[in-house]
């Protein structure tokens, strides 16, 4: 019963801060609201007994990516409200892209059998032992390949960041 209230609170928080990301005037506020959204989603993971996922979610998104975002936005000095109104064709393109993304999401969720998790505290999939077993036994190759993808991205970032010619 108590977890129900926590669920509603977290959902409301996630939705509210998600909307506020778009509505905030200052970029810093948007970034902070986005961080709050990540925390709310992390709370949902804990409700699903997926402590490992929750903590990794917070470490990676709130702890690393959002700090870098905040860092960049601070340096950009976007305080002066110098955002000029966008031309009409940009707005039209944005609306078309948004609608298409929405259609794709609806398509995905229609094909997926959405069922209620009956006893969330009995699922073990989000615990580190189960997750590790699945990742390293059943999905070994995709996991390792994705790590190479990350390595490529890192090397690329270093290359782009280097000033002098190599």
């Amino acid at each position: 019963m108590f977890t129900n209230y926590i669920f509603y609170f977290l959902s409301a928080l996630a939705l509210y801060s998600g909307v506020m990301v778009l509505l905030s005037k200052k970029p810093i506020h948007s970034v902070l609201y986005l961080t709050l959204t990540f925390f709310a989603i992390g709370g949902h993971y804990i409700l699903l007994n997926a402590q490992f996922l929750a903590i990794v979610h917070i470490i990676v998104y709130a702890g690393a990516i959002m700090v870098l975002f905040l860092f960049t936005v601070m340096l950009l000095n976007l305080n002066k409200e110098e955002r000029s109104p966008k031309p009409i064709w940009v707005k039209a393109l944005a609306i078309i892209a948004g609608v298409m993304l929405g259609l794709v999401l609806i398509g995905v969720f229609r094909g997926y059998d959405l069922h209620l998790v009956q006893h969330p505290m009995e699922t073990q999939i989000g615990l580190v032992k189960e997750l590790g077993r699945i990742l390293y036994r059943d999905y070994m190759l995709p996991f390792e390949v994705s790590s190479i993808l990350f390595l490529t991205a890192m090397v690329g970032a270093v290359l782009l960041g280097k000033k002098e010619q190599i």
Partner: protein
Amino acid sequence: MLIFKILLASAVLLLSLVVAMYSTLIERKVAGFFQDRLGPDRAGPWGLFQPLADGIKLFFKEEFMPNTADKFLYILGPSLTMLIACLTSAVIPWGPDIVINGQTFSLQMADVNIGILYIFAIVSIGVYGIMIGGWASNNKYALLGAVRASSQMISYELAMSLSIITIVMMTGSLSMRDIVNQQQGFNWNIWYQPLGFLIFLICAFAETNRSPFDLPECETELVGGYHTEYSSMKLGFYLFSEYINMFISGEVIATLFLGGYHFPFIDKLGLSPNVFAFVSFLVLFAKITFFGFIFMWIRWTLPRFRYDQLMRLGWKALIPLAILNVLITGVVILLNQ
């Protein structure tokens, strides 16, 4: 059970606050000792009431808020710093189980199976308070301090995490209790991971913004760094949370590398469970105090790093060394199997 947890949480919170309060006095006494002077000795015997006097002074100082500050974030900054500083101790095992009326109680608030990752998470979000406060002050020096703090913390987090990974590899568990129980007697991790210990210690200095890595508040260049615009108890929170962080990181180092509450031959004494738990807790506390002293010792001995030196040390020395340490540990574990 719930009541015991609440009592334990309150006790730990109180302990952190009192220790942080008296760390300020000890810090000044230690500084006095290193510089061949007495340190504060006016308020009470040996200056024992000095922290109280400081606290009262901070409370009664004028609340100052810059006109151009972002009001909400300006207040959120120090509050968040203080809150996050108090969060870490939730997963630290403070001693072996105690028995009251035939019921066993664990001296650890939450034995989650990802305890060590929880500490990572708290460390990694610890920078928000400083960044928010520094930005919201709307002051160039404060902003520079905040930017320095964030880049420094991100850089040193990497080496710190890599040095803890070796501990996780040796223990085979992410739970703090398992890590402590593995180091029974004198079987401490520091004997197996001297390099990891060194890297972790250096990173702990950088993460707590302590000298020689206190670039975010480097007063020779940045006036007061991220808390330039703060006064009264908001400034107090920033300064105070530094001491809480010091206490907590001493605790984490003692737990991860120095066997937590374990001590050689203590199980030979044949004490009853509760006395045993108490003695174990005192042992842990002694280890934490020792690290507190090291933090102060280094602060009053070494000069401050330059910013590029700090970054070079982090990225070009500590991270490669930490990766090497992970590789060596992995090979040794494989050979021993």
